[in-house]
């Protein structure tokens, strides 16, 4: 009897153990297994909406979207039948063996439809679509992708698209970004990615153990991204870009009263299309190009200001009453400061402020700088917007740098000498500015003393952004001082010996300042920054040629641009 008892007890105990096991599986770990079960049988096929368009001030599409066709296969059996491989490769006109290998590699064992070839053109898509009659597991799926009707135009403003990288993903995860999302890199695409990006939709459906669909569970339509309208005029943008003809440099055309940027270009450019095509050799060529085409030189390139900087010294001196309209210095071709001779590029003789600006006399400004003092020059430079970012709504803007005795003492514990002041007065030394900063400074003289905040986005999704903009800041310069400088700027173009006299023949009165910034050992950078028409300025223009020689070269570019603007009736 006892042995029977033992057996009964043992069996009862085992049943209890089974129950405990069931409790563990179904209740304690139930949720985990439920999730696993759902992952087994629920599939999501995503459908993308189209990304928001980027349009110019007149509504012309600069970056739109078009349909791209992808070849998808729904795996049914493994390996892929040879016959269908042959047919697919014949349509694509590819080497059959290579293509077959590539197809096999992407062809998975399980369930989900997979993209085998993307970015088919319409002809191929139609041809492959017909194969579906014979091979039902082939499908051609349409998919909106970015299109660039103007190809490379405004590429730096737009930026490009690519798969999200790890750094961005960690930053943006909380905003609903996922791995493999396509996001903007640089430019408007990055700045307003959150608005431009589409909301992913898709179909969720139930599949059986072989991955074929059993029933649809739900459908969420994709939502298209919001359109972004720029202040750019694409016609003007094209004119500016063509004027550069791939020479290294940058240009900005801006409304001096509001700060709205009408053209902003950096050269050389790149084709944003290459990033869409995922053609690695083309993309890596862009990345490895020593001319750095991805950098937006207009806001992200810093250069010595050269003679352009003389305007800062001039306004500082006038405002501090160090000189007046008729004060003059004698230029004998050079000036001895300390133990060193500081040269002028010519011998100008007696110069007042107006002719000194017009002829860009170095000696005059050495003396003026020494009179004003380095710290005050620095302060005025900052007042005019140098050494900090302009606040334009584009990413990766550089701040530039303006040296000062105080900063030098704080950072390097070195002294400041008069020679440094002389160098600073003509925008050499350690002065670094961006073309946009220069254009912004020029606006102050063009608009009568207001520092504007440049912007490039007019509206998002049809809603204007004016409410969020910073108002132009009044700098409290005396009107007569501004007029003196304006007169000098006009002189640059209109005087016989003016450095920008090449622009005098135009049908519109241009005023401005040239600059030839030394950049040893390479050629100097050529600057021209000005505004027109002189009486009622509507445009500020800044042209920089990187290692482009004397400022004269930039004047030629500016001339070409303004001529073309006149022809096309943009002024």
């Amino acid at each position, binding site marked *: 009897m006892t042995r029977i008892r033992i*057996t009964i007890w043992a069996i009862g105990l085992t049943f209890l153990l*089974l129950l405990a096991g069931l409790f563990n*599986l179904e209740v304690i770990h139930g949720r985990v297994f439920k999730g696993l079960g*759902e992952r087994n049988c629920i599939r999501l096929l995503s459908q993308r909406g189209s990304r928001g368009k980027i349009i110019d001030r007149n509504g012309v599409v600069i970056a739109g979207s078009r349909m791209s066709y992808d070849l998808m296969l729904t795996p049914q059996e493994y390996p892929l039948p040879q016959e269908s491989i042959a047919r697919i490769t014949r349509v694509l006109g590819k080497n059959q063996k290579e293509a077959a290998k590539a197809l096999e590699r992407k062809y998975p064992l399980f369930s989900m439809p997979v993209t085998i070839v993307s970015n088919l053109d319409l002809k191929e898509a139609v041809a492959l679509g017909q194969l579906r009659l014979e091979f039902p597991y082939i499908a051609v799926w349409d998919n909106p992708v970015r299109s660039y009707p103007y190809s490379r135009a405004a590429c730096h403003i737009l930026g490009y698209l690519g798969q999200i990288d790890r750094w961005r993903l960690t930053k943006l995860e909380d905003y609903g970004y996922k791995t493999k999302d396509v996001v903007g890199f640089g430019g408007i695409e990055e700045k307003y990615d959150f608005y431009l990006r589409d909301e992913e939709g898709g179909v969720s459906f139930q599949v*059986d153990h072989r991955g074929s669909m059993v029933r649809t569970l739900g459908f969420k339509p994709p939502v298209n991204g919001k359109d972004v309208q720029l202040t750019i005029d694409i016609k003007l943008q094209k004119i500016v870009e063509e004027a550069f003809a791939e020479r290294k440099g940058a240009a900005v055309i801006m409304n001096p009263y509001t700060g709205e940027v009408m053209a902003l270009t950096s050269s050389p450019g790149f084709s944003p299309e290459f990033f869409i095509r995922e053609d690695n050799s083309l993309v890596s060529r862009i990345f490895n190009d020593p001319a750095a085409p991805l950098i937006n030189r207009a806001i992200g390139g810093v250069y010595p200001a050269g003679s352009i900087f003389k305007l800062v010294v001039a306004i500082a001196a006038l405002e501090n009453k160090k000189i007046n309209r008729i004060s003059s210095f004698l230029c004998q071709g050079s000036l001895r400061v300390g133990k060193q001779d500081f040269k002028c590029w010519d011998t100008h003789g007696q110069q007042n402020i107006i002719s000194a600006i017009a002829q860009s006399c170095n000696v005059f400004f050495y003396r003026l700088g020494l009179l004003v003092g380095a710290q005050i020059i620095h302060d005025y430079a900052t007042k005019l917007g140098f050494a900090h970012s302009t606040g334009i709504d584009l990413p990766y803007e550089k701040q530039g740098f303006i040296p000062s005795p105080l900063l030098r003492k704080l950072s390097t514990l070195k002294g400041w000498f008069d020679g440094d002041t002389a160098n600073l007065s003509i925008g050499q030394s350690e002065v670094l500015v961006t073309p946009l900063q220069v254009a912004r400074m020029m606006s102050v003289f063009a608009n009568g003393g207001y520092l504007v905040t440049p912007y490039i986005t007019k509206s998002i999704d049809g809603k204007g952004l004016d409410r969020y903009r910073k108002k132009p800041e009044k700098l409290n310069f005396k009107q007569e001082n501004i007029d003196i400088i304006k007169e000098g700027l006009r002189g640059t173009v209109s005087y016989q010996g003016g450095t920008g006299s090449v622009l005098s023949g135009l049908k519109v009165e241009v005023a401005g300042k040239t600059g030839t910034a030394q950049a040893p050992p390479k050629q100097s950078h050529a600057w021209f920054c000005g505004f027109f028409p002189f009486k009622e300025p509507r445009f500020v223009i800044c042209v920089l040629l990187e290692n482009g020689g004397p400022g004269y070269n930039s004047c030629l570019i500016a001339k070409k641009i303004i001529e073309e603007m006149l022809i096309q009736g943009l002024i």
Partner: protein
Amino acid sequence: MKNSTLTILLIALLICTLSIISIFSSTYQRDSQAWQNIYQRQILWVFLGAVLFLILANINYRRFWDWTYLLYVISISFLVLVFLLGSVRLGAQRWLRFGWFNFQPSELAKICIVIFLARYFSRKDTHSVSSLTEKYGFLRALLLPLLFVALPMGLIIEQPDLGTGLIIFFLFISVLFLSNAKLKYILTFLGLILTLTPFAWHFLRDYQKDRLMVFLNPNIDPLGAGYTVIQSKIAIGSGGFFGKGWLSGTQSQLRFLPEAHTDFIFATFSEEWGLLGALVLLFLYYILIRRGFLIAQRTSDHFGRLLALGVSLMLSIQVIINIAMNMGFAPIVGIPLPLMSYGGSSVFVTFISLGILANIDKSRAVF
């Protein structure tokens, strides 16, 4: 005394109802009519099984004493026939075709061996309570019956059907234990088996080795041999406390779970009915088994008692191993869950065994 017959039949039919519900659920989404109608066949098997039960319940079990060796020879010859003529399914040769009915002789062999063991360890004299085994030496207590058991067991393992083979082996050990064989013998025997196990490894088929390895760690081969265990655990686990509801089990209906209507019907059932349903099912099995042991305890006839014990043990071993294997507690061996799994042979043999059990209780008063 009719009470026991009725109780046993009632419990068995209740379990069969759950079985038919689950079989229906696991197959109703299949494309082919043949698959969808499989539950109707099970209803037929259950009906025929119940008839067999009633017949057996009215045949005096003592007749089996006389028929023991005949039954033994019949089951052996069926097993040999399987070898010669059996149809191969799922890589194993386990079935004999009788017209439209696929018969699995190893199921029959199980009950025959139970009868054989009960007869071997008891004597005809019903008045003597003392067991023979206590007086038997090593040879008669162990070696001789082992030879009798080893023959069908070897044939079954060669099919290959390791599961049923092992069940027979378990049965042998437990009947030995329950018939009061000297503990010394049993332990020696078990020790011997344990030392031989490593050598046995080499005789296992590759898939059997895989299954044993996978039992130790199902994640070695999640898409191959481990697939079934993982899917079965997912099915049971995702049921939760209340289950997903009838006809709503995704694991079984979308066929992620293989053998959802046979060996893994417990997982199918648990997915849809949850812990609550499993509790009910386990309870039903427990009272059925408990009833078997109760009958054994109150039977004074030594043969009857051993027979009742053998039948109850056979039932409990199958239930426990099958459920444990569904939960990933035991390696996967082809053992059906009695009365739940689809299959005529298993249903018939289970009902026959229960019929014998009922008759033992009924005939008790006669002696």
